């Protein structure tokens, strides 16, 4: 009988949450359409489709200034053009003109081949080229320098330019790097983080913001002192938000697969299981924050910084392995970064979910910790109210 009552209470809380949600048109639009759509579309806009190999320097106007005017410098130009990394390599600039044009938007870099380039190569000495970059434009300098460095690896001044990227530069000692390992498009890499961001962003606000709003409206106290058990309230809210998260995950995945051509390397059930894990983690944290009695405005501020932390320390900008000091500590203890790692290893590398034991344990323990802590804090709040 009491078990049935708990189930009925859970169902009542869940139905109430859905009812409130259904009546709020802007919440439906923001939660189920705007957030998944905005995040996925901006990923597509920033990274291109999942099947495309995007080269950031390909469409960048770059001046090629040849002060050597030799066969070797001519072949360097051809090597750069044929690499497909420099489709807008412009000849005809003088060095001073190119420098004057940099920073004004007409060109973003200038590759200068100095006099004596061929002579140095023929004397078995390294040739030197100078690359001026508009480093005021963020990311351009690194992109251009990486592309030039990669291309000159295949440069041979003595033979005709080969058509393939892998070449044996005859008559010279070289070290070619044969790269192995599955390659992923920027979209596929970003999708794992976007999925997590969408879930965290919406879930945290729905749980913590929802409870804070209830507190501000006065219905929270009534709910706490009702005969419904605290566990039933927490489970009811959790189930309601899990439902919304599954819809959101389907929206993001649907867009990623049908609009941007993404091909996740795992099955749908695994994707849903990871979605549920990250949702539970965020809900636990949301319940914990709301049990501290913070207002809606504070929830919004915490949400902003939570998302910023995820952006910064979950491998979206920089991998955890590269971090040192404070960033490394944050990345190590941020449970969401393990959730994102689970997404990456399953969706990209096709690893079975259950093989990621450490990550699963970390996320699982964090969920339990958040829920237990928030249960006790909410219980204290209830006792204070009743008392």
């Amino acid at each position, binding site marked *: 009988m009491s078990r049935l009552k708990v189930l009925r209470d859970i169902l009542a809380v869940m139905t109430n949450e859905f009812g409130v949600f259904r009546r709020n048109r802007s919440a439906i639009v923001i939660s189920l359409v705007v957030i998944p759509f*905005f995040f996925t579309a*901006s990923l597509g806009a920033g990274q291109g489709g999942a099947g495309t190999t995007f080269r950031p320097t390909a469409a960048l106007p770059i001046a090629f200034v040849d002060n050597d005017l030799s066969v070797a410098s001519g072949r360097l130009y051809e090597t750069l053009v044929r690499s497909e990394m420099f489709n807008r390599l412009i000849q005809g600039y003088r060095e001073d003109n190119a420098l004057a044009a940099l920073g004004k938007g007409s060109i973003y870099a200038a590759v200068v081949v100095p006099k004596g380039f061929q002579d140095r190569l023929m004397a078995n000495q390294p040739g*030197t080229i100078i690359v001026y970059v508009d480093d005021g434009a963020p990311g351009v300098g690194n992109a251009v320098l990486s592309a*030039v460095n990669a291309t000159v690896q295949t440069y041979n001044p003595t033979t005709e330019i080969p058509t393939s990227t892998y070449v044996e530069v005859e008559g010279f000692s070289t070290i070619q790097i044969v790269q192995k390992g599955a390659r992923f498009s920027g979209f596929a890499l970003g999708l794992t983080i976007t999925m997590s961001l969408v879930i965290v962003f919406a879930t945290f606000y729905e749980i913590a913001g929802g409870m804070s709003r209830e507190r501000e409206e006065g219905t929270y106290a009534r709910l706490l002192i009702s005969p419904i058990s605290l566990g039933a309230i927490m489970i009811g809210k959790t189930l309601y938000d899990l439902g919304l998260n599954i819809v959101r995950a389907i929206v993001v995945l649907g867009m990623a697969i049908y609009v941007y051509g993404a091909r996740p390397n795992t099955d749908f059930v695994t994707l849903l299981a990871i979605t549920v894990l990250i949702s539970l983690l965020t809900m636990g944290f949301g319940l914990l924050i709301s049990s501290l009695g913070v207002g809606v405005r504070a929830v919004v501020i915490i949400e902003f910084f939570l998302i910023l932390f995820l952006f910064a320390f979950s491998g979206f900008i920089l991998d955890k392995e590269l971090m040192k000091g404070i960033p490394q500590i944050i990345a190590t203890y941020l449970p969401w970064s393990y959730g994102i790692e689970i997404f990456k290893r399953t969706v990209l590398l096709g690893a079975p979910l259950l093989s990621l034991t450490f990550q699963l344990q970390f996320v699982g323990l964090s969920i339990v910790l958040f829920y237990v802590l928030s249960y006790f804090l909410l219980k204290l709040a209830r006792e204070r109210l009743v008392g």
Partner: protein
Amino acid sequence: MNPLIRDSTAIAKKDLKQLSRDPLSLALTIMFPILLISMFTVISGAFRDSHAVPVVIADLDESAQSKMFIDELSVSKLIRVAQLVQTEERALETVKAGEAIGSVVIPKDFGNKLLNARAAFVVLQTDNSKVTASFTVIRAVADRSRELLNKLNAQFNIRLVSVDVVPRPVSGRPPNGDFILPGYLGLITILGAFDDAVNAITRERERGTYTRLVLTPMNLLSIYGGKMAAALVINAMRTSFVLMIFVLSGLVIQGNILLVFLITSLISMFTLSLSMMISSRIRSSATLTIMEIAITFPLFQLSGAFSAPEILPAGGRAISRALPWTWGNEALRRIMYLGLDLNAISADILVLAISIMIFLPLATLLSKRTM
């Protein structure tokens, strides 16, 4: 005095006074840039001083040259040789299991090929699900390969073809300075303006004073003009504060500082206009803030704050160019780093000004309709 200016001034004074009486909002307005800059500084610090990435090596050649190559890889600051393994399979397994980010396999005949003017190769397996770490491994192996060739050239006079790329940045920023500082300022301006709009319109609506304000003999344009003037004062304070932090941390602003204020004011005005337009549909301040945060995060990528539109794919470039914020961020960079003058940023100013002229009347019109 012109009634429009008189009423706008009165509204601006009221809003500023109201902010000074609300310690939480005032603290947030001041603390927000500090918190954001601290966060960005921690993130940038992680980039500048990164940890060495673990790699494993399988030396199948075991020649003097392969040992030299291992020594070269060991001295790299970018990677750390975590383990030497016996077989190629073991090396690959280590990467698959996530124990290392990369494995370098030196095949048989590596040293012999190098000494006989032939192409030697190494097999590099990387965990490409970790994009920056795998890229670091590739870069380190390429750098150390070049270094090995130069050493072998000096020792055995081998024939090599090597091209050194000398980078020369053109901006006035210090070589170790952050290329995204103007982007920070742009983003702080955008986020601050969003928050100012929430304070100015939605919270007023929630308090119930907005209706009374609209029912006064002032016209709606004066009300919006006044609110915008107050927000511009706050924005100027915020800009000064951020610039002070930048200058104290060693940044030299190359261009005219007044132009920096002009651009942040225009970015702020555009953001406020857009925000006022959205607030005519979304009445709750919390929902509006969430909506604006949802808009802001994609802006990190698309507004030119952290990556130039030119290095985005075609679709992203088009979206980025269509956003007035991108023009503002670009103008800030040109002034702060390249020291360019008003002429050089006139197109950016024009785009921002036209956008404000479109969005501000639209916001007023939509507000009138929803009353």
